[in-house]
């Protein structure tokens, strides 16, 4: 048998036009950041203060920026935010089937509007300097566990958006 274990993740964005019912899907791969790796090891180790990926302890954020992915990325380039247009939400469900964990997050018509090109999962964990960064609804809070970029997905108040984030261990 193989001696190594891979961790892969895939992201599927599903946009639904509530007026016409039109459905658009975008599927991309992404990367697990170095602090994301630290989080996974710390979760395995049951390290104090590191909160596993419960629905209440994870935020999925979307943004409109564009940057070359790198392992040490700590935040989205331009996270969507603002009164009446939150750009991050807690997931609606987190489930596991065999070695795959699926994190599903739903943005209704009143959230995450913009010309979206990036998304990230944020959790409470230790950053590259060993500092604990608690997660919250505030822009940039927590550590960036995983990051994805994609061709522009236009989201406005006529669309809902569901983002399914898979981790395959």
């Amino acid at each position, binding site marked *: 048998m193989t001696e190594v274990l891979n961790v892969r993740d895939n992201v599927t964005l599903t946009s639904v036009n509530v007026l016409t019912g039109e459905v658009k899907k975008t599927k991309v791969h992404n990367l697990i950041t170095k602090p994301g790796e630290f989080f996974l090891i710390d979760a395995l180790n049951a390290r104090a203060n590191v909160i596993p990926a419960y629905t209440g302890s994870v935020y999925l954020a979307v943004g409109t920026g564009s940057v070359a992915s790198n392992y040490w990325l700590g935040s989205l380039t331009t996270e969507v935010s603002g009164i009446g247009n939150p750009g991050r939400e807690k997931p609606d469900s987190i489930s596991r089937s065999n070695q795959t964990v699926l994190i599903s997050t739903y943005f209704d018509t009143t959230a995450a509007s913009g010309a979206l090109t990036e998304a990230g999962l944020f959790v409470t964990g230790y950053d590259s*300097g060993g500092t604990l960064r608690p997660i919250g609804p505030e822009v940039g809070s927590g550590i960036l566990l995983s990051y994805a970029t994609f061709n522009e997905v236009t989201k406005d108040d006529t669309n809902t958006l569901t983002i399914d984030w898979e981790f395959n261990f």
Partner: protein
Amino acid sequence: MKEDIRNMYDDYVRTYINGELINEGHNDILTLGRNLIADRFKGRANVSGIDTANAFIAVGYGSGTTTAGMETLQAEAPAGSIGRTLIGSTFRPVTGSTLYITAWFYNSGGLGPIREYGLFTTGYDNDEVTIKTCSGIPDAGVLVARSVKDVVTHTSGAGDSLTVEWRITL
């Protein structure tokens, strides 16, 4: 850069007797171990971590090839030989994604012609319902990873110690 990033666990096991490195080998993460890692990620109830309160390292005499579905060592050393012990320490460097795990068998522990090593903790069985509780009893718990190496003969003696160092790198 590549968009599909694969992070590989570079796992290995080292064996020391009285502080001297005897051998080193890779190991395999098993199916139930992968399930457990995923469960730890999502914080599933009743699933313990690889930590000093819950996880054990066991030694045994089996030399067969590891298969993904293995749930116990082939021939874990019996309780009378103290074939398993709680992990003594774990450590992850600030900027590293390696978990360093160490267990010590003192004096009359971990005796015999040792060929296989197992990392155990508490988690779910294949049916996803039954909890396999880890303890000092042989074969108890979920076998997360196994390693088979050249034989190491550990004999009893005052001050004698067998140290197992396990590394899991993401």
